[in-house]
């Protein structure tokens, strides 16, 4: 899943034929004031950060004049919202609101089909509303082969009590949003609120869009608009994380994913999606503090293994390395061994004083064992379980650093 910032999502939704407020993007308070002047009316200023609930976080401000816009923009630009420093602001015309609606489209993972959620009580959190006033929420699943019939778009809003011209407009907007959802391979498309202005027009006042990064090969239009790596982090990517994304992207073979933890001493070089989860749990259960999370596998090249290991070891405070993997189906243990041993050597790590425990079994593990053992690394194969290897790692940490562990 990749998040799309609001100025981009508004542009895309606008292109799909759904009216959006006039807006512009400001990187300085000066630009914000200018935009307010150009719009010639009161404005809303929103921090452009890839996190939800910005209103609650105080990252949405209002201004009636250019001078106020300058002040409010400065406040926003000094803010950090959920670890994301505010670097840009969306400045848009403030709407004259008569009523607020809610609409979102996503995939219902349990029913395995798209679902439209609509309500005539917009502007609030839909989870709360669905719990407290289920009668004010309509949930409509869409058959992915049959598609969304035009009458359904009107049925949704008629069930919620809309009528007359507004019913037709809301139906039309719903159809266009669904088209946009499909066209841009969205994970989520939410408009909250979908405002009915005092002039009786519908406007997508606040939009949230997240797209399927698996579909990027057919989404040239979204290039440069998706927040890279936004699904794996709860804060902006760290320098090390960026480095390892580059390592991963340099070669199509296998995967190397890395998430930096706060603190920790054990470098975590594990593999298999499930194997990594298990290995991390095993260390934590025994009182270990991994310095990072990692997932490698899918038969990575030596260069990728090397780059990943180097990255793991280069984090300040790392005092040991735990290497574990489920028994592999295709990942070659000798290739893993070459990459890891090379990184250890080049980083000047001596396994005699710096604890390194390896549990790697599977394809070519006889050769892999030889490479690890010759480099002086403590190696275990399939005769030892991942949990047993984690226990050994903790023992080595305890004897090497009695003050720490």
């Amino acid at each position, binding site marked *: 899943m990749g998040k799309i910032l609001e100025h981009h999502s508004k542009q895309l939704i606008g292109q799909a034929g759904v009216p959006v407020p006039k807006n512009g993007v400001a990187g300085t308070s000066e630009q914000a004031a200018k935009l307010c002047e150009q719009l010639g009316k009161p404005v809303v200023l929103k921090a452009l950060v890839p996190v939800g609930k910005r209103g609650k976080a105080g990252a949405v401000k209002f201004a009636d004049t250019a001078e106020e816009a300058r002040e409010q923009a400065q406040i926003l630009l000094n803010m950090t919202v959920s670890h994301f420093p505010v670097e840009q602001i969306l400045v848009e015309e403030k709407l004259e609101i008569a009523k607020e609606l809610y609409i979102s489209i996503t*995939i219902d*993972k*349990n029913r*395995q*089909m*798209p679902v439209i959620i609509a309500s005539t009580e917009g502007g609030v959190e839909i*989870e709360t509303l669905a719990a407290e006033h289920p009668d004010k929420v309509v949930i409509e699943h869409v*058959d*992915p*082969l049959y598609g969304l019939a035009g009458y359904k778009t009107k049925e949704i809003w008629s069930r919620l009590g809309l009528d007359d011209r507004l019913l037709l407009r809301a139906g039309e907007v719903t159809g266009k949003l669904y088209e946009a959802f*499909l066209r841009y*391979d969205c*994970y989520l498309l939410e408009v909250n609120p979908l405002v009915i202005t005092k002039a009786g027009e519908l406007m997508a006042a606040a939009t949230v869009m997240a797209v*399927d990064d*698996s*579909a990027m*090969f*057919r989404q040239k239009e979204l290039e440069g608009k998706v927040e890279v790596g936004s*699904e*794996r*982090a*709860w804060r902006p990517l760290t320098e090390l994380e960026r480095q390892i994304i580059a390592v991963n992207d340099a070669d199509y073979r296998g995967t190397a994913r890395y*998430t930096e933890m706060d603190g920790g001493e054990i470098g975590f070089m594990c*593999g*298999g*999606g*499930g*194997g*990594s*989860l*298990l290995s*991390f*749990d*095993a260390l*934590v*259960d025994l009182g270990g503090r991994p310095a990072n*999370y990692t*997932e490698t*596998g899918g038969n990575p090249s030596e260069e990728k293994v090397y780059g990943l290991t180097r990255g793991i070891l280069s984090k300040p405070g790392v005092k040991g390395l735990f290497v574990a*993997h*489920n*028994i*592999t*189906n*295709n990942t070659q243990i000798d290739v893993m061994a070459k990459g890891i041993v090379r990184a250890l050597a080049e980083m000047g790590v001596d396994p005699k004083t710096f604890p390194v425990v390896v549990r790697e079994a*599977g*394809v070519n593990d006889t050769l892999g064992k030889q490479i690890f053992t010759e480099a002086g690394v403590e190696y275990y194969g*399939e005769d030892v*379980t*991942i*949990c*047993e290897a984690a226990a050994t790692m903790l023992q080595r940490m305890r004897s090497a650093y009695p003050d720490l562990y």
Partner: protein
Amino acid sequence: MAILIGQDSRIVIQGITGREASMVTQHTLQYGTKVLAGVTPGKKGQDVHGVPVYNTVREAVEAHQVNTSLIVVPPAFALDAVREAIDNGIKVIVVTTENIPQLDTVKMLHLAKLHDVRIIGPNTVGLINPNDRVKLGSIGGDNPERCFVPGHVGVISRSGGMTAETSWMVKRAGFGVSTSVGIGGDALIGTTIRDLLELFELDPDTHAVVTFSEPGTMFEEQAADFVKNGGFTKPLISYIAGRFTEQMPEGTIFGHAGALISGSVGRPSGKAARLREAGAHVVDRYDELIEVLQHVLAAKEAK
């Protein structure tokens, strides 16, 4: 017996001439599994390790009456490959492809349901039946015997690699597997844990089932309900990895794409509680699988 695949499986591999598919074909043949045909449009008349290649599934069905397909094609072609298989009457389809756009996945799963076709995956390592020496997918690599020996334990895993490791734990406990299935690492898959429990219940050769799970999805919760309602009556032993993710900020993905925790849905602790309540043996440490399995199967033997 086993589930889903056996001696009656007449296998075709779609996308057989690709690098990955060619290697899988070689390993599959070496294991003793019969692969009757391969399909790659425009490559009719070639062969891959002796398996004849056809342009279309239709031709493969006409020549070999294939009924089971392994799909090893790039993400952009996966939906069409599944369509082709379904339109030609294939009833069991294993989709190995990772990173298929979810809108395509939704369509293929929907089509399969309409036509009563069983899809395993997408994003799966495949499945294996060691008794009949039939495997579909990269499962077991070049040495399936290492982890998969014939026996009476069913294995279901949301992680491909852990399908092997968990089957190896079964072997370490002194048993073997009837069928081991990697169900795929995505949240949108054709055959869930619950669906497989239903099949294992009907298989007289399966005496117990071991599952390996991860955070995210409702698969374990659905399985728990199924057990609770009497749909599965054999011993069920479950391990759920990724408890540490509950301490991390919400919305972060660790492990597979399906492993996304949102709100209280998908938390390992919640899954464990639901499964325990339904009567499953949930182990907190993965290694406990061995002991529990020995205990449970010994008790069953004694009956």
